[in-house]
């Protein structure tokens, strides 16, 4: 049986203790965990969905710019972090599952474990409007 690396396990445990939305992905962008606060943005409970492949969870959001144009995946901070192993930050609009538009600010950073092993990424969200 293969368990997750301790850096991912502790990231999850920290995320569970925070009152800001946190998403944790593996190196491919598959969603490993999101906390209770992130459930409000995603519109789904982690206990119901469990882990989600990148193809599935990335379609839940519709990221839009200030003019209402759909953003490409490469414009999203988390995708940039996964591609470059570097922190990224950005603000954009999303349409929630219940049809509400929210402007959010996202900061993402790579989870670089001991020995500089790239293990995944964490994204933290703030609702601006």
């Amino acid at each position, binding site marked *: 049986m293969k*368990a997750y*690396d301790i850096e991912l396990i502790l990231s999850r*445990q920290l995320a*569970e203790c925070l009152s800001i939305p946190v998403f944790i992905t593996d190196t491919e962008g598959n969603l490993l965990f999101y906390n209770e606060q992130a459930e409000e943005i995603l519109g789904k409970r982690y206990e119901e969905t469990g882990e989600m492949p990148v193809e599935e969870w990335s379609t839940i959001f519709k990221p839009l710019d200030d003019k209402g144009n759909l953003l490409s995946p490469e414009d999203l901070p988390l995708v940039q972090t996964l591609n470059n192993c570097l922190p990224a930050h950005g603000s954009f609009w999303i349409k929630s599952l219940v049809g509400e538009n929210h402007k959010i600010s996202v900061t993402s950073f790579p989870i670089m474990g001991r*020995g500089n092993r790239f293990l995944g990424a964490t994204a933290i969200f703030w609702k601006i409007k």
Partner: protein
Amino acid sequence: MKIRILGTRGSLPSTNPETFRYGGNTACIEVSNDDQFFIIDAGTGVLKLSPELISKQNRFDILLTHLHIDHIQGLGFFKPLFDPRNEIHIWGPSSSSRTLQNRLNRYLSPPLFPVHFRSLPCQKELHEISRSSFELCGLQVETAYVSHPGPTVGYRITDGDFVFTYIPDHEPFLGNRGWNYGKKWISGMGLAYKADLIIHDSQYTLEEYPDKIGWGHSSIEQAIRYAGIAEAKKLLLFHHDPNHTDSQLDYILRSYSGFTPEGLEIEHAVEGSVYNLR
């Protein structure tokens, strides 16, 4: 595979009649297979290694879980280090910033120790490990980082169908509000899963633990629950608190009888005891 326990105590050696039965030496385990052996951790228990055994070989492998003092305290007194004919291999967790040698130097140098690590006459080879897998004495060794302050690994040693797991310093449920995350979300579970014998941290009682959260150790209750989740067969409670006397340890273990997971056998680790996994 044969496992001999040379040191069971955590944090600090405890040499008094009240801790004699379970042992006062700090962490050290001898693992042997056929005529070869290696040791895990080099607490003061390393001095209990039999001179006859030492005289039989010139290569010594010392596997360290981490570099807290109770796990390396005996290293400077390990006689084979002072014989130039000997080849010493030290395996220890990789750090993001400092080499294993650099970290060992902190202890094996003045003012803490009179002899510099680099001045030891033996032939030294250091191996930095993380999520690693290698073979030693015909046994398969797997390692992974576990939840404990500073770089710390646990070991899973496999001999055919038999598995021995050693995680002496471990706080797997730190910050974990639930117990139902699933096995792969629990620290060290890949090492402990279905072990025939697991030696696991159990430094505190349930009453003591709340004042020690984040110190990197488990309560006895957590160790039992951990071994149960891992579906291990036998748990040796280890890293005894230096303040716990033999009679207190007896009382603690009795208080958990009837609350143990089905199929799990539990004992306190006893200095000098031997387990054959065959």
